[in-house]
């Protein structure tokens, strides 16, 4: 089977090479140039990880004195010491991992669910105000309001949402970009499934959870993953709203300040690489889901 796969890959490659050179010369040259540009950027992104991994194997002095050389003697111990030394406001790696998982898994799940439910009910049911939501979300997106961060901070502070797990309450909003995506998705789901279910005696909840929601599960999965990645890496909000409940993204910034203070850049870079592992694993398994299931059809009036 492997031999057959290899043969078909070579045949495919051969066919592609023939097709490639059958193009007009200008197009061939364009593709070659684009290919080299892509290679440059791809290699530069890989270099971040390479540099980080190598820096994690050096001593602090080596990083400062010769940042681009290979380590004289690889300090593998650094990658173990990270788990002992990584501590931000009383949270170690696992504590911060917990916080990251809590906010980045629960948050997108709740937010996507609420958006999905709101989009479904406003798309499929006619009631007073059903069109209001689409209008409001459209206006919110194309006319952003600036400068309300201070007011928002004061409200969160007064409600006790700063440095609190209750901060997750902010995920309970459904009126955002994902609402538009779900609304568009439900537009292409036929109502006849629901009609059949109603005839069989199903109620509205059953129709949604057992029939309609599964139809948009692919896009739900893709949006959940996108939101998970964005929330996982969100350091700016974490630094402001959760400094005492550090996530990996926000905590690693505070940890940077700590390690610079303690003359341990080696541990810092080792920590960087370790904290990058969870999203890389997830991407490795779900990249096809991410790439092929999100379609933004625009706003239909």
């Amino acid at each position, binding site marked *: 089977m492997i031999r057959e796969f290899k043969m078909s890959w070579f045949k495919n490659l051969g066919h592609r090479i023939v097709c490639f050179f059958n193009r007009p010369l200008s197009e061939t040259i364009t593709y070659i140039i684009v290919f080299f540009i892509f290679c440059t950027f791809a290699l530069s992104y890989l270099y971040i990880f390479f540099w980080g991994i190598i820096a994690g194997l050096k001593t*602090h*002095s080596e990083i*400062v004195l010769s940042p681009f050389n290979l380590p004289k003697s690889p300090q593998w111990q650094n990658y173990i010491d990270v788990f002992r030394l990584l501590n931000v406001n*009383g949270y170690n790696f696992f*504590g911060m991992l*917990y916080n990251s998982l809590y906010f980045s898994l629960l948050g997108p799940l709740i937010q996507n669910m609420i958006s999905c439910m709101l989009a479904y009910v406003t798309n499929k049911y006619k009631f007073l105000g059903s069109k209001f939501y689409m209008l409001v979300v459209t206006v919110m997106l194309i006319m952003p309001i600036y400068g309300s961060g201070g007011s928002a901070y004061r409200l969160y502070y007064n409600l006790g949402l700063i440095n609190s797990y209750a901060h997750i309450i902010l995920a309970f909003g459904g009126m955002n970009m994902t609402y538009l995506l779900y609304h568009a998705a439900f537009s292409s789901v036929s109502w006849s499934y629901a009609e059949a279910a109603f005839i069989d005696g199903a109620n509205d909840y059953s129709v949604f959870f057992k029939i309609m929601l599964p139809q948009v599960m692919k896009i739900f999965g893709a949006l959940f993953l996108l939101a998970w990645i964005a929330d996982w890496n969100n350091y700016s909000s974490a630094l402001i709203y959760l400094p005492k409940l550090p996530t990996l993204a926000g905590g690693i910034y505070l940890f940077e300040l700590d390690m*610079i203070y303690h*003359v*341990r850049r080696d541990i810092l870079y080792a920590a960087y690489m370790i904290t990058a592992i969870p999203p890389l694993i*997830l991407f490795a398994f779900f990249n096809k889901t991410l790439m092929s299931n999100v379609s933004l059809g625009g706003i239909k009036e």
Partner: protein
Amino acid sequence: MRLFKKILTSILILLLVMIVGVTFLSGCGRVSIPQTENDVTIKFWRSGVGQTFLDKAVENFQKKYPQYRVYIDSSTNRNDIKNNFGQGYDVDKVDIWIFPVDSISSKTLKEYAEPLNNVLTTKYEGESITIGEKYESSSLEALKWPDNNYYSLSYGGGWYGIVYNEKIINGVKYKLPRTTEELEYLTIDLYHDTALKNMPPYIHYADGGYWDYIYKVWQAQYDGMDYYTNTFMPLNGGESDPAPSKAILLKEDGRKKAIEAMSRILKPSYVYNGSNSMTFTDAQTLFIQDKAVMMVNGSWLLNEMKSVSNAGESFKIMKTPVISSIIEKCATIADDAELAALIDAIDAASNAAEVALSGIGYEVSRADADKVYEARNIMSNNFDAHGIVIPTYAVAKNAAKEFVKYFYSDENLANYWEATQLPLPVTYSNGNGPDMSTWGGWEAQQQQFTTSAIPLYSIQRTSSVIFTAGGARPYAGVNIVSLLTANNADDRADSSKIWNTIVLNHTSKWQSYLTNAQL
């Protein structure tokens, strides 16, 4: 692959369920510190002083006083105290802040910090003098507020000065400069020394490094400590121009002279390239690894860098050179050579009265000798900024005070000095300082400054409300060092342009200073 995906999806769902469950059931695994009268929470700022001394103090205190329990919560974020202290028990559950206190406003400190006067008037059990009497007098005076209360005490810190590499400035080819003019010549000679091609005279870190602790010394040298402390910092123009005086703030005084002195010794080529964007530990790492000859730093330098190098014997802090323009205020000192000769005599004397008024190369008046004596011995320090503060709303206030008393006991001071080998402006109850027989040259030098230096403190208790609440800073927040050492000529400025910028900033912001200070 599909099977892996299914497994991973199941793991994710299980993880989700576990997270929600654990969050609700276990309070997230953090052990909460009990809040009783006998449970003391210490918030400690981890810095170059280290934490070993505090761990020892806590361990021994709990052994001696088993009814108390002490918990240490450490942090390297300086803003923790600014963000929490003074917000009441609901937010701030700390009983003792062992933290930099220069980031909180004096208003907040006075309102929410427990006066520690009764700690200072206590004699620790078995000792013959009070804790206040153990303190070096000028340090204690610096900790006293105008209302005669002590809202914070010192747990450490050190002296600022120009640290030099003794392997280069060893008295043979290069001698220690006595005046800023000599420092300028030394800088030029070092720069032109081909053997030191890759070792520029200076290195600092971003935002001017610690240089501000040197140029404010030069300011105080020129104007005199009395003017600095009692006229400039309170902006007190006297009866005809009561505080806050704009005229005092804009006056061409020691600040301008200090900037001129800086402009002669700091140029882009004299400074390690990259200094203006470096973190402080990176700059220190390079300095310790012989990549520059001099760096303005503090007593904690080698302690802070011990994981990088044990280079204790190669570095010392020089006595801050006297600003050469001081001769403008000294009628009997003709030139820099005479000033240098007088300084030699000052360095050989143990107090101002002992300084001969004439000698080889100089003949001066008593007033000028005293002025230069004071100038030669002024040193910046931050003992007052490294504060021990107890909030008024602390639950374990009395237990906290007992800990502070123990901190200053002879027993704990011995442990402190054994752990840190850093200076502290206190003595044992017999009047002696630490036993330095096992200390290196660097450590011993720092402790010696405690008895010989005229301290210039980080927080001036006499400071005008324009500085403490108005948002003003003596040099208007201008980054003098970056302006002098920028490689890009467009980013560079000379001393007169820098001074004009300071004056312009103060003039344009004067009204907002008054508004912010509610005047």
